[in-house]
């Protein structure tokens, strides 16, 4: 399965995603510089974590205007897989590929620690290798990770089973403990926690692997 990782000025988890995909999972992976207009031959696009444009104005506010993001939107519209991690999730929301927004943590402080997530549904290309209700120990590292959306949007997400993962203990004030959601087409997924930081025993947890395994498994069925 071919992966493309978008690089914005200020992204810093692009290397980690490359390591997880290329070294740990041995998948063909290439970078796409934010100024490029084509993603090349790709099945799944990764919009990585980091501080695109230094998080100035709003996290992800400026990155969404990069030429590469236009190509990501087209890829998504054509049914291709897109996963946004942390800053990537914020960029997908700013680009309206996902509903809602990520605002400042309730504690007003940056939080970096392992947290427990519960898989709410396995009906998605990003969680089909997990078990429903399975608890994953995956690290978060963000200052603006509190998910917000208007009540009717939250209802819609629940009704359409589009909340893929929730926090067991809410670290940042996210509405309805939401940690990750997908779009209507279920091919675009955004999550605040970092699965690429939990794909090797040496880093303290391997639970992040089941997200990547799900993506690989979805390639077989699609």
């Amino acid at each position, binding site marked *: 399965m071919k992966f493309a990782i978008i690089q914005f000025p200020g*992204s810093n988890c692009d290397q980690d995603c490359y390591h997880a995909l290329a070294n740990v999972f041995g998948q063909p992976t290439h970078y796409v510089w934010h100024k490029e207009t084509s993603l090349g031959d790709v099945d799944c696009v990764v919009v990585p974590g980091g501080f695109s444009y230094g998080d100035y104005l709003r996290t992800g506010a400026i990155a969404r205007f990069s030429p590469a993001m236009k190509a990501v939107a087209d890829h998504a519209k054509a049914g291709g897989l897109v996963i946004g991690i942390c800053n990537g999730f914020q960029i997908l929301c700013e680009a309206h590929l996902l509903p809602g927004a990520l605002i400042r943590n309730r504690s007003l*402080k940056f939080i970096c*620690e392992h947290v427990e997530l519960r898989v709410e549904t396995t009906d998605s290309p990003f969680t089909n290798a997990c078990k429903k209700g399975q608890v994953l120990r995956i690290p978060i590292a963000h200052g603006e990770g509190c998910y917000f959306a208007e009540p009717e949007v939250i209802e819609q997400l629940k009704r359409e089973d589009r909340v893929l993962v929730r926090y067991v203990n809410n670290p940042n004030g996210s509405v309805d403990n939401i940690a990750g959601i997908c779009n209507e087409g279920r091919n675009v997924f955004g999550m605040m926690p970092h699965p690429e930081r939990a794909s090797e025993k040496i*880093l303290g947890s391997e639970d992040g692997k089941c997200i990547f395994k799900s993506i690989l498994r979805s390639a077989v069925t699609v």
Partner: protein
Amino acid sequence: MNITPEVIAKHGITPDEYERIKQILGREPNITELGIFSVMWSEHCSYKNSKPELKKFPREADFILVKAGEENAGIVDVGDGWAIAFKIESHNHPSAVEPFQGAATGMGGIIRDIFTMGSRPLMGFDSLRFGPIEGDSAQAATNRRLFAGVVAGIAHYGNCIGIPTVGGEVYFDESYNGNPLVNALCLGIIRHDQIKRGCAKGVGNPVIYVGSATGKDGLAGAAFASRELTEESHEDRPAVQVGDPFMEKLLLEACLEVMRKNGLVVGIQDMGAAGLTCSTCETASRGGSGNEIDLNLVPKRETGMTPYEIMLSESQERMLLIANKGREKEVEEIFRKWDLHGVTIGKVTNDGMMRIKVGKEIAAEIPAAKLADDAPVYHRSVEQPEWEIRNSKFETRSVREPRNCQTILPKLLASPTIASKNWVYRQYDHMVQDGTAVVPGSDAAVIRINLKRPDFGYTPKKGEPTEKYIAFTTDCNGAYCYLDPYEGGKTAVAEAARNLVCSGARPLAVTDCLNFGNPMDPHIFWQFRRCVDGLSEGCRAFGTPVTGGNVSFYNESPVAAIDPTPTVGMLGLIDDPKHITTQWFKESGHVILLLGDIGDELGGSEYLKRIHGLKTGKPPRMDLAVAKRTHDFVLEIIKKRWVASAHDCSEGGLAVALAESCVSNGDCMVGARVN
């Protein structure tokens, strides 16, 4: 502006130093030249008061590739063609004035010192000291504001640029009221053949200015750092620099990309304290050549800046790069990709002069070597302070032993110096770059370096290792150094070595940040000399040479000097990931061993201070030979896989060490029964 004795004094230049300047120039200096001499000959840049003492440090070893004092950071070989660059530096005075930006720019400056050598930064560390933060006095409230601001500043800079801050230490003591210590460290990896030096060579080669435009930030920040922080220093406030970690991330990536293309870059130096002055002069003196730059070509953020202001500005995120003639276009192309502009502002000459022009007119012309290397050197007088003699006579046995120890341990564990620092490192992204094998909270941080990373600019060949493991720690007990600088110096090195060994690493090399009061005071210089003696002996005993670091004098609050605080940062190597050991007990039923005996050594202890309000007595004697044997023994039994956890006794002694071993990992809390 004519140069009057008051103007000279205000620049911190003594009358005989002024005579020396006139001798070097063969004439009176103009105001720009005086400003240049004042920053280059400040303690911060020239080490004029500390140089004679620093010579005592062991600095030689076959695995040292770049020695202390040669370049921006020291570099040590770690095998298979790989090397580690690391250094610690202080940003104390700017942090006292504006904690957030002071700490943030401290982080930014030390990161530049690493990637200017061509090294890819892997991790950061912070060693902090504040006044007490408990209670509702005005001073406690100020200390809390400084503490919160400094931590937030380090988090902001490190998190944004994507360099994990994986460890450090925080102490609280009255002596740091009004003068917090912010020592920031950065460590990076590099191939032997990627090492770049800050030198200007090749007549006619273009001198290129890269990064942020120049503004009036931190004017004469360097000289400012060498003057005591007294009441009237508040009107220096506009001297604070503001950092832009996003710009530095672009600068980091662009500079590494330019340096990795062979034939493009001859030399490169970051613009740290004294900005354009230091970089222009030091690259010329190291290259045995001259530099000529035109200030009209320097990108400026404000109009109407005088040559004096441009040469002394401390605007952040700027580099000076010397490229090969004819290759400027390629250099500028790479910088444009990263939305930066590389502007040629001058060229290398062979007349040994640092010539600063404004269009046709010469604003300053100084022999570079003399400016960089011939700063005056002073041999300050020393006198043992009476408080050391008085305190050493104190009999700790005279202190009434508490009837019920049950209440003592919780009080010690609640002391901010001992208590968990989770509140601090939780704000740092300490996991980015997928390398943190042991997260903050144990004796030392352990980093797994994945050598296959494309951004290292080298692909390991068949049979070459694809991973390396390093450990790092920073340590210093200021109270010990206050009571007995010599023992305190030895202990700082021993404790760092101990922390590494407890993590399964063999100590390799040291960088140090020497925070002291006013060197003109013989009591303070006695403390400095004795601490350096102790540090040198410790480094010799553990075979860990000093590869570089920083001296910060004039750390004094309006009341008194700070406790002498020679912070030691020590690098260790772990030969096999199976040797990685953490400090918390793993399972019930394990046997607890205590290595080393317990002497009557309550002097300077956290117990005496916290429970009895006494900072006195003789601190523990450090027998370096016994310590070395103990460390070797611990490493050996770790290698035999007999050890489940290892922890050192430091502040709070055995009781606190046992408690920490039981509870410092939230996921595996156990108890312990000790006879």
